[in-house]
């Protein structure tokens, strides 16, 4: 079942169309990637999903009903791209305040905050002020305040920006854990490579329009160019073949592109027939970045 469904959302500003007729749905429990370059309309889209903006037209369906910010907001956790915390407020109080604004009672909030603070090794920070924290530390605090109220839908806008690899992994692990426990996660970023290892399903937006939508595997499959990388124990003589073409060779590898109507097994067979010592055989799938450039490039041409 889709936890969230967007139907023909539009949001126009005076000067440009920030979101121009975008529809997609997000299955419950999935990790969903909302991708696009800076200024593509991601933040506007997210602000509509979080009830900050009203769409000019279109519908947002949340858990099967029309989205009602007042009631549904408690089920959503939103970490905006521009991090925000009260600089002069003590960290513990701040987390408590934000949790209670989400509708938690004091007792539950305290319990949850303590759990998360222990998990992120932040227990000793309780009386510190945000001013005294490093950027990475305040980033962790921001994440904690977003997930405290156990939202059903967690929206993370560029969650890894400004984090070192250790903290990135820490948060990534937590995202996976939350997803396993049934939280749906929308993960918005312009850095495509981050998405590949996390997301099940993605939507690509550019200039306010949706240009791609589907599961990561499906999309990669759609855009694959049948390129394989074959590793050898000692590089053999290049083979001229009707079933494939060697695109490049480097060290002990050939990169080959299989011609239409042929199968990888045909290629393998030909090399084996030439008594080549194959030690590896991998398909090279296009990166999301490449796919994006390809699609965005053609959508610009179409315009």
């Amino acid at each position, binding site marked *: 079942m889709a936890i969230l469904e967007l139907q023909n959302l539009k949001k126009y500003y005076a000067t440009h169309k920030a979101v121009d007729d975008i529809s997609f749905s997000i299955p419950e429990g999935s990790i969903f990637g909302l991708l696009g370059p800076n200024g593509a309309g991601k933040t506007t889209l997210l*602000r509509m999903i979080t009830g900050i903006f009203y769409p000019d037209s279109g519908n947002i369906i949340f858990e099967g009903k029309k989205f009602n910010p007042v009631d549904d907001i408690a089920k959503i956790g*939103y970490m905006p791209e521009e991090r925000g915390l*009260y600089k*002069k407020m003590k960290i513990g109080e701040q987390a408590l305040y*934000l949790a*209670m604004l989400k509708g938690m009672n004091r007792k539950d909030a305290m319990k949850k905050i303590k759990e998360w603070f222990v998990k992120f090794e932040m227990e000793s920070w309780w009386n510190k002020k945000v001013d005294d924290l490093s950027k990475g530390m305040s980033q962790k605090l921001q994440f904690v305040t977003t997930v405290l109220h156990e939202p059903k839908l967690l929206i993370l806008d560029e969650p890894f920006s400004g984090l070192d690899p250790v903290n990135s992994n820490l948060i990534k692990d937590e995202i996976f854990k939350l997803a396993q426990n049934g939280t749906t996660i929308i993960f918005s970023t312009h850095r495509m490579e981050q998405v590949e290892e996390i997301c099940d399903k993605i939507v690509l937006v550019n200039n306010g329009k949706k240009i791609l939508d589907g599961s990561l595997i499906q999309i990669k499959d759609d855009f694959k160019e049948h390129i394989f990388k074959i590793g050898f124990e000692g590089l053999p003589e290049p083979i001229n073949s009707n079933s494939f073409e060697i695109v490049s060779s480097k060290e002990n590898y050939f990169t080959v592109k299989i011609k239409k109507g042929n199968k990888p097994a045909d290629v393998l067979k030909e090399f084996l027939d030439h008594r080549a010592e194959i030690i590896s055989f991998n398909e090279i799938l296009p990166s999301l970045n490449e796919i994006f450039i390809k699609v965005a490039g053609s959508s610009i041409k179409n315009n």
Partner: protein
Amino acid sequence: MNKIWLIIKREYLTRVRNKTFILSTILLPLFFIGLIFAAAYFSVSSTENQKVAVSDNNGIFRSSFQSSKLITYEFPTDVNANNFKEKGYTAFLKIPEDYNSSGDSISLISDKQLGMDAEGKIKDQINDAIRNQAFLRNNIDKKILDSINKMSEDGMYKFRTVVKQGNKTEKSNSALSYGIGYGSGFLIYMTLFIYGAAVMRGVMEEKMNRIAEVIISSVKPFQLMMGKIIGIAAVGLTQLLIWIVLIILLSTVTTSFFSPEALQHAQAMNSMGAAGESSAAMNFLSAKSTFLSANWALIIPCFLFYFVGGYLFYASLFAAVGSVVNEDPQEAQSLMLPITMPIILSFIIMTTAVGKPDAPISVWGSIIPFSSPIVMMGRIPSGNVPAWQIIVSMLSLTAGFILTTMLAAKIYRTGILLYGKKVTFKEMGKWLFRKS
């Protein structure tokens, strides 16, 4: 409602716990009292003796000029406008040799301003001298003249003003009502700026920290704005309350300086209406009773109403300005102008209203909500503001702040999430009339 309460609580507690709040709340009244004492002290001690050289060749004034603690008059012959300084005089008073009529000018020459007080005293001396001479010329006996001159105002009559309203007669004291009117108007004027600016800074802080977006994903922008406004209003009322308590405490402490006997004695003297010998205790008691004679039962509730009402009227506008400002504080200055102008204008009207509470500008100024909080407080202590005017003024202020809050909320909602763009008044106008 629960959420707005959380916001109010946070705004209130973070401010009240702040060291600067505690210091300013306690130190400000002490500072003012210190200032009053300092002013009194300097006004006494700084009046060093001024030596004035008088050139009075005809001797008209010689006999009537009397040196006082403040000014010593001397009549040297070798002093002129060019050398009085070297001879040790602060000023040189030149009376023309052929002085006899009003057309002649008497000039006071000094190298720096003597001050109004000293100048006034010298003029008084000249006036008295001329008048006395005129009397003497017309054959009025010198003894009679001296006895007339010795009569003081208190010896001749007692001046009382009484305001009659229907069959109710009240002792009135226009100086007191002037003072209270001016003081409370000024206090509201100050607090509008202080707490208005606090609201604006708070909004700017939230916008720049980008916390606004986090909070707005939990509560409505209107709740965030109102929570802040109400929270700061509570801070203002707390501060006011502390000041009132401090004033009462201080006046009690001052009362205890006098022994109970002295006070009893003074009270007895007071009730007998005895004039003449006045003690410090008596002065204090009479000041206190004059102060208490004001219509505090009307003034205090009205003050609280206009204090809160005026704040609510302007605070949301300050919030709207804060929401559209970006990093540049200069922007805030120019955007604030349309808000600060009416406040300053109200203050100017108020200074007229305390003196002329019934002038049309005072009446209108105290009814129109832009200026009513300040102007009405200037009028109320005079005791002759008709009840209907107070009611209309209060209703229009209430309607006014509901309206400004609604309009400001529309600007605030858009402005708080808009970064890096300078907003013009024209754009804000568009936001006002846009449907959500």
